[in-house]
């Protein structure tokens, strides 16, 4: 329906995120330089740690690890973007991920004796369903009671943290010394794509499929159009006979399902049980990924890989270049400020451009 692709249009949609990332890298570099680190050394280490370092017998290949880290970012950011499209701000992805992880873990270790073909999809679905319900609560409260989802999803985050904490330390605690659930049955484990020590698993494939489904939903289906119309002009959509409340609930269910699925993938593929200290922070970083991705699945995929690379490369950067890996959170913080207000980047560039010719002129004058 939205016809006509051109290089200009793609560039128009791309320059802002690219410039934002560039500018954030520059600011973090300045910060590092001030605190006495050579930013070039640090960034080289970051890049190597994220993409280049080869695998060995005991160590996974850097690039594959980046994809492993990118997987939850991508699935979560798709979920968050979906809510953005309807004009909703699901910033409770973290809590939905927790609930997804919790319930899929339960399905993974409490049900026994099923073949993998049934048990694994069941466990994944259980996680998606839990996330859907958790976000659906906020969607329903918005639709039926007008409660702002920005606040309710955050509140539901804190409740989810407590629920998981309680369950893992109480009713679901396994017979281990450290508080955690029992191991998930082998039949519910999401298998690796490559032999160990590689950890790359089928989650990446699930993420890509989710991306494709997202595209089809938004571009080809009445439901997707409905979501976008509600997001664009709620009153006009309602006046045209679109059921706005139902759209809100459906959107939040789908958004939460993706976030819950991300949690399920994490525990079923990587942890294989639910630890007491299950803190990821993915849910918040993914808001940045979603904004950076600009609401389209390819953009989201690229942004997810970028964040995965930062996440994965940071550890290597810390031990090889001695830079605190928390610099990454500063980097991410600036990226999303710039993405949220591309005008800042544009004005900065305009300002620099205005300065440049003058300094060039001055150089000339000095030379002559």
């Amino acid at each position, binding site marked *: 329906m939205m016809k006509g692709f051109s290089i200009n249009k793609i560039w128009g949609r791309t320059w802002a995120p690219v410039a934002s990332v560039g500018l954030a890298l520059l600011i973090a570099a300045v910060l590092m330089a001030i*605190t006495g680190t050579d930013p070039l050394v640090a960034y080289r280490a970051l890049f190597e740690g994220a993409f280049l370092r080869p695998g060995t017998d005991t160590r996974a290949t850097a690039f594959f690890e980046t994809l492993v880290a990118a997987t939850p970012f991508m699935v979560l950011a798709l979920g968050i973007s979906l809510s953005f499209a309807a004009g909703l*701000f699901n*910033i409770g992805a973290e809590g939905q991920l927790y609930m997804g992880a919790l319930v899929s873990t339960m399905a993974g270790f409490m049900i026994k004796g099923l073949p993998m073909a049934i048990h694994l999809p069941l466990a994944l679905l259980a996680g998606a369903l839990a996330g859907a319900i958790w976000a659906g609560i906020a969607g329903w*409260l918005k639709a*039926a*009671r*007008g*409660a*702002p989802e*920005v*606040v*309710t999803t*955050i*509140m*539901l*985050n*804190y*409740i989810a943290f*407590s*629920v998981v*904490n*309680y369950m893992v*330390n*109480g009713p679901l605690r396994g017979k281990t010394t450290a508080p955690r659930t029992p191991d998930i049955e082998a039949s519910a484990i999401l298998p690796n794509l490559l032999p160990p020590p590689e950890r790359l698993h089928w989650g990446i494939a699930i993420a890509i499929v989710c991306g494709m489904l997202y595209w089809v939903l938004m571009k080809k289906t009445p439901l997707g159009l409905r979501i976008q119309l509600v997001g664009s002009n709620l009153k006009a959509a309602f006046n045209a006979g679109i059921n706005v409340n139902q759209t809100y609930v459906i959107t939040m269910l789908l958004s939460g399902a993706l976030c819950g699925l991300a949690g399920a993938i994490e525990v079923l593929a990587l942890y294989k049980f639910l630890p007491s200290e299950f803190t990821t922070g993915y849910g*918040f*970083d993914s*808001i*940045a990924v979603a*904004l950076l991705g600009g609401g389209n699945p390819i953009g989201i995929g690229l942004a997810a890989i970028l964040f995965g690379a930062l996440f994965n490369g940071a550890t290597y950067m810390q031990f090889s270049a001695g830079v*605190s890996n*928390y*610099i990454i*959170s*500063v980097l*991410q*913080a*600036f990226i*999303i*400020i710039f*993405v*949220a*207000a*591309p*005008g*800042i980047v544009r004005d900065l560039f305009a300002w620099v451009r205005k300065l440049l010719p003058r300094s060039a002129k001055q150089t000339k004058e000095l030379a002559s």
Partner: protein
Amino acid sequence: MEQLLEALRNINYIFLLAVALRAATPIVFAALGGIFSERAGVVNIALEGMMLTSAYVSFRVAVMAGSPWVGLVGGIIAAVLVAALHAVVSIRYRTNQVVSGTVINIFAAGVTGYLYRAFPTTASADYLPDLFPASMKNLPVVGSLIFDQGILTYAMLIGVFLTGLVLFRTRWGLRTRAVGELPRAADTAGINVNRTRFINVLISGALAGLGGAFFTLQTVSTFSPNMTSGQGYIGLAAMIFGNWNPVPALFASLLFTIPQALAGQFQLFNVPLPYQLLSTLPYLLTIITLAGFMRRSTPPAADGIPYP
């Protein structure tokens, strides 16, 4: 069950109220900040991030300067700077105010988390001094409620009064309300809409700064990441429940903290309740309140809409 009844009989309810008032301090500051900002037409989700920033900076500065007062000033300045960021992004660059606020909260969590871990310290900050002598705190019945509060709690109560006064009895307040209801009317009356909004967002930052300092200069004397734990959002709920008015917002805040204080008392009396689930009480109450009262509230008409 017996233990529960036993506890209910023995709880000192005045003391309970004192605890609840103390716990309400940052929530009320956030609510007051929200009132200034939203009465002027700028939705302020970023209060959480402003409080977190102030909690960190006031702790750091208090330790470095050896004075909690200097720390308090530092915290307020830092929160105002974060507020300025929200104002620039949402007013100057017209970014959706909810997006701006959310982004700033992530920004604040990222930056404070980085600084906390990159420059570790074992030092603790001195508390802000008490206002009343110990003898008055031990006065029977109301000693704990009236005289045994931290200085920021008294500041909060004064803040509630001043907010009402400024909003409804001063030129600034009149202009603020006009700008938040019908900015075009204010504009045609010669008022600079966006400047008025900008300054109100800065005021909300200063109030959030006081609220943030509560965590490190009146409660625990050290910083931990994300220690504001959603209280900025709860403050927004209190603001909504109070229909953007300061005194009702204070009572709404108490509504959120009294049950939690009660739960604390139960634990003291060994009532067997899962503490992890009790800690969700303020969050649950916030959700219930929003679900019950959002439709009955009337936000400022231009709240959240950039001008022009």
